[in-house]
């Protein structure tokens, strides 16, 4: 019996094939498969093709259970750019892949933990919409944490 294959489509309309038994590590896909057998193409409108390629690579890993944790850690370590990690986290959130979500977010946390506020803004592309006075007011309000 040949293994069943699913096709995932990224938001830029690229198609990726993956064996069903690997794809169902994603709870979202698992539920789709349960519902309608997921015979057609599964669209992922919020995941771009580069990120989806990474997710597919992740889902295709063939690790022994006891080595899996190390593998996942290494997998995100090797893609240590914050924008990529955030895209991965977004995809993991949409696809409900807990381990990948954990690993990506943990890596981001690890990267930003020694950053200054300005560096965090830059890394997470947060626009500072406060005047310096307003920012100071916040620091004063929560001065017990600074």
């Amino acid at each position, binding site marked *: 019996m040949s293994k069943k294959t699913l096709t995932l489509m990224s938001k830029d309309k690229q198609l990726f094939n993956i064996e069903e038994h690997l794809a169902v590590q994603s709870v979202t896909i698992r539920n789709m498969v349960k519902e309608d057998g997921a015979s057609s193409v599964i669209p992922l409108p919020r995941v771009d093709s580069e990120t989806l390629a990474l997710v597919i690579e992740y889902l295709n890993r063939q690790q022994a259970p006891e080595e899996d944790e190390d593998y996942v850690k290494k997998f995100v370590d090797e893609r240590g750019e914050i924008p990529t990690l955030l895209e991965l986290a*977004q995809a993991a959130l949409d696809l409900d892949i807990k381990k990948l979500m954990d690993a990506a977010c943990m890596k981001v946390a690890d990267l930003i933990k020694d950053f200054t506020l300005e560096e965090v803004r830059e890394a997470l592309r947060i*626009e500072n919409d406060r005047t310096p006075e307003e920012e100071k007011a916040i620091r004063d309000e929560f001065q017990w944490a600074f």
Partner: protein
Amino acid sequence: MDLLHDDTAASMIDRISNLPNEIIYHILSFLDIKYAIQTSALSKKWKHIWTSMPHLNLNSRTFRSAPLFVKFVNDALSHRNRHTEVSAVELSVRGAATQFAAVVTSIVNYAYSHNVRKLTIEWFRLNDEGFRFPQRLFGSHTLKHLVLATHYFDGLGLSLPKSAWEFPALQTLNLSNLHLNDDGDMSLNLFSKCVNLEDLTLHNCYMQGLDSFNVCAPKLRNLTITDPRKFPKVFNVVAPQLQNLTALLCDNLFGFLQLSTEELDSLEKVNLSMGGRLLREKESYASGLLDLFQKLCHAKFLILDDGIIKVYKYRLSYDNIDSLCEFVCILCAKVLSACLDLLSVEPCPFNNLKFLKQKDCIQKMPTEVRKYLLESSPNATFILDIPQANHNIPIYVKYTVHIDPLEKYLSKRKRKMVPQKRSREEVDKGTMAKKYGKID
């Protein structure tokens, strides 16, 4: 990369700046709450994010003194969004109960009243001053995961309720370095109301003087006893769904686990180790082992002397692990061989072994022991495992024994097993090299 068009780059920036709160919360869950609160200065949107994040990490060590930590916790908790439930609270405290008792109590109460699902409390350097957890915590209906840990010398200080803990939702419970015995109790039955408990780990727990410690949990699947400091007189397990039992059999005071069991019908994997404890009373250990084998005869896999790698990882350098395993394997074989008299009287409870695997490091296992383990298993294959060049693979399977359920065992036990020896001898002599290639 030039593939990245301007519009995709722009949309990516847009997406990231609009990170969903779920991802922000998840990132913050890996950071100390003090850091999370500082993100309030990032932008207007971020001002209140921390007040609703569901996962709190509190650590007294990020503060120079206990009073600073106490003030911080009070301020932080009072600024939280009152309607947010907390999914997880991780608290790490280092210091005396006199300084921290009040703040730990208020954190526990906060967690309880916000329907905490996962609670982790590590309290080091508690000293001897007592701390009593708020009783209401032990009636939490939302708690699914609970970890309570102290340092080796601090366990005496934490006092836990002695009547059954009422955690109807609890799935995993991990108790580390705790005294589960004080007040001169004769018998403890803490988990009988944890009707959904699936995983129980007792690490370095001290049960001195208890007549019996009872683990009665209808849904328990995994029971792990690591590095026991002192066993009770009887360790009673009633767990009809127990699949995996991992135990270090010898406590710090050389006491042997006296297991009493009921209804262990679902047992799959039993993983027993002797630890590196000195063998002062080899004979009593040996009879204890035989007794255990009888009680755990439902098991389909028997692994002897695993767990030792983990137990010793913290105490010895990695270089020693291989030789240590070897030592322990020989130790275990010695225990069995120390009572060859017993072996010849008692039939081996493990019938229908599929194979018995012997690693190179236990070549010294006496033939009598090997014969004993195989005597009820006519078709067992004996495999001599030749050491491999790759030393990265931990040597953790010493004997792997497959056993059929009790019915077969009982029916077979009545029969004499004379003719079976021949088949095993044949395997013994001829096919090791062949089998080696086949198995690994």
